[in-house]
């Protein structure tokens, strides 16, 4: 072994070891422990926990004997997919507008980023107040001023009615998915906070596109819609993949905003896990659920990467 090889190995250990040790103690070991717990019926007892081996029956029971689990999955899927669509459409729109030349562009861009810096808890309470279902609520107030809402009528925005409940197929589909007005309003509140992130990632991507491509496109007589799909979109595709992966994993694990606004009444998988594990103190089932959440996120990511890379071949 030469001297330089020796020093490389030593260097590697000095640089990497602290992080590896920390990660082992705060992530890997707890995860392995959690997997073990998930194979048990576990409950707290004085100074420790009570364990009864159950094998995979916790997993089996969620999949085959627990309608609430699948309802939670459906609600979370609805929240994730609808949020993603809204964020992508609004985000793309804003990014395309901000990519043009206009007065005070850098100031406007700085302002756009601000909601993203609002802490999630503050965001939740801010929208709770905007959505207040009485005369004091700002959304009710604005709609009344604009004449959209009758002056003596108030909408309870964070209420549980199913949207389109009276429309035949749509209504029963939404109630099967567990959609409520509150859930839709929370999607708007969450979108307000995270769209700036989508916008800025897209803007960075837009700057990579050579201007000459658009000039060629104009000469060929392509309209804006065509130009977007034939020039802009191919360039932005890697950015969209990143956004999809990042946002899906954040959305599917959602907990804070829903728990703060609705406690246990909208059981997305994050809230359901917390309820089973931390409220009812069923550690075994809670650990099982938390693993299932992680597995769902992993599956989504793999699916995205598959789809995007297959298209490229």
């Amino acid at each position, binding site marked *: 072994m030469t001297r330089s090889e020796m020093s490389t190995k030593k260097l590697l250990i000095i640089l990497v070891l602290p992080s590896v040790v920390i*990660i082992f103690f705060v992530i890997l070991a707890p995860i392995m*422990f959690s997997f073990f717990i998930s194979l048990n019926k576990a409950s707290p007892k004085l100074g420790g926990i009570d364990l009864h081996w159950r094998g995979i029956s916790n997993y089996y029971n969620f999949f085959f004997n627990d309608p609430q689990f699948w309802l939670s999955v459906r609600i979370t899927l609805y929240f994730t997919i609808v949020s993603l669509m809204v964020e992508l459409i609004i985000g793309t729109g804003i990014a395309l507008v901000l990519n043009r030349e206009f007065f005070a562009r850098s100031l406007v861009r700085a302002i*756009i980023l601000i909601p993203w810096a609002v802490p*999630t808890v503050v965001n939740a309470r801010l929208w709770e107040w905007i959505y207040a279902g009485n005369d004091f609520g700002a959304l009710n107030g604005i709609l009344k001023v604009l004449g959209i809402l009758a002056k003596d009528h108030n909408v309870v925005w964070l209420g549980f009615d199913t949207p389109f409940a009276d429309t035949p197929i749509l209504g029963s589909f939404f109630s099967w998915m567990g959609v409520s007005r509150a859930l839709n309003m929370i999607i708007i509140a969450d979108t307000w906070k995270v769209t700036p992130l989508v916008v800025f990632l897209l803007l*960075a991507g837009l700057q990579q596109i050579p201007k000459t491509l658009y000039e060629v496109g104009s000469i060929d007589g392509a309209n804006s819609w065509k130009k977007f799909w034939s020039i802009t979109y191919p360039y932005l595709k890697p950015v969209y993949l990143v956004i999809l992966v990042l946002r899906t994993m954040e959305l599917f*694990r959602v*907990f804070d905003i829903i*728990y703060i606004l609705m406690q246990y009444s909208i059981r997305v998988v994050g809230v359901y896990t917390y309820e089973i594990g931390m409220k009812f103190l069923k550690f075994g089932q809670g650990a099982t659920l938390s693993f299932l959440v992680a597995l769902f*996120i992993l599956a989504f990511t793999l699916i995205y990467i598959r789809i995007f890379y297959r298209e490229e071949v």
Partner: protein
Amino acid sequence: MVSTIRVKRKAREILLYTLILIILLWTLLPLIWLFLSSIFPYKELISNRLNHWIPSHATFKHYLSFFNPEKEISSRFLSALRNSLIVASITTLVCLFFGSLAAYAVVRIQFRFKRTMVLSLMFIRMLPTITLIIPFFIIVNLVDTKLINLFGANVHLYDSRSLLIILYTSFTLGFVIWIMRGFYLTMPEELEDAARIDGLTRLQTVFKIVMPLSSNGLVATGVLAFLLAWDEFILALIFTRTENAVTLPLFIAELGSQYIHDFTQISAAGVMACLPPFILVLIFQRFIVSGLTMGSVKG
């Protein structure tokens, strides 16, 4: 012909500025409402929104009450602010130090388990915090039982800032390594080679050449990590209870009772919690945007 082109251009410009105005309103109106709510007197805030949008007797007393030692809320607010600042800063500094070194090694040094390591980093990045709360909870209980038996009731992890810092490391360190890895992947290697030819050892090169050169990346990553820790809620919800460790997000989430939600107070606390992130974002805007894109480098 010329005039129709000019009219078209004018129309386009008007459309563009209308769109920008809409975007700005959508972005700013909720924040303006948050601030206005915080300077309303309570009695005025609880009034019909048809005509009460701007307080006729604006007051900053809700802010002042946070700093007035005679008010009950003051000590709770100040301790929450202090806890949040301490926990977020220390977590950020620790993770930034160890994480950037590890990221550098992962990019520059060839070793056998490199691929495995990068893959596990990606999995760690995707892992939801909720997956860790149950093992954390059980382990903290076990450790605390031992500690209390050994040292008495005052020594425990639960409800302490140290515990929060340890737990926050779980999601911050992987994040820092991932983003700094993106940064080093784009940093040219020539300068380091030159430094080594000049007789510096590799470790010296890391501390004297690489770290100063990556100050931009470190600042960007540091700000993002701080924001992440500042925003954390669920771990604080489970592992803190008193002024020893309750953080600002938990304080704000629990403001108000079952019957009365005093949104003047809540809004004022909300504005205060927004200030550190806003200042960071406004000062480091360019760094943050580069940090966000660094994290999205493929590999």
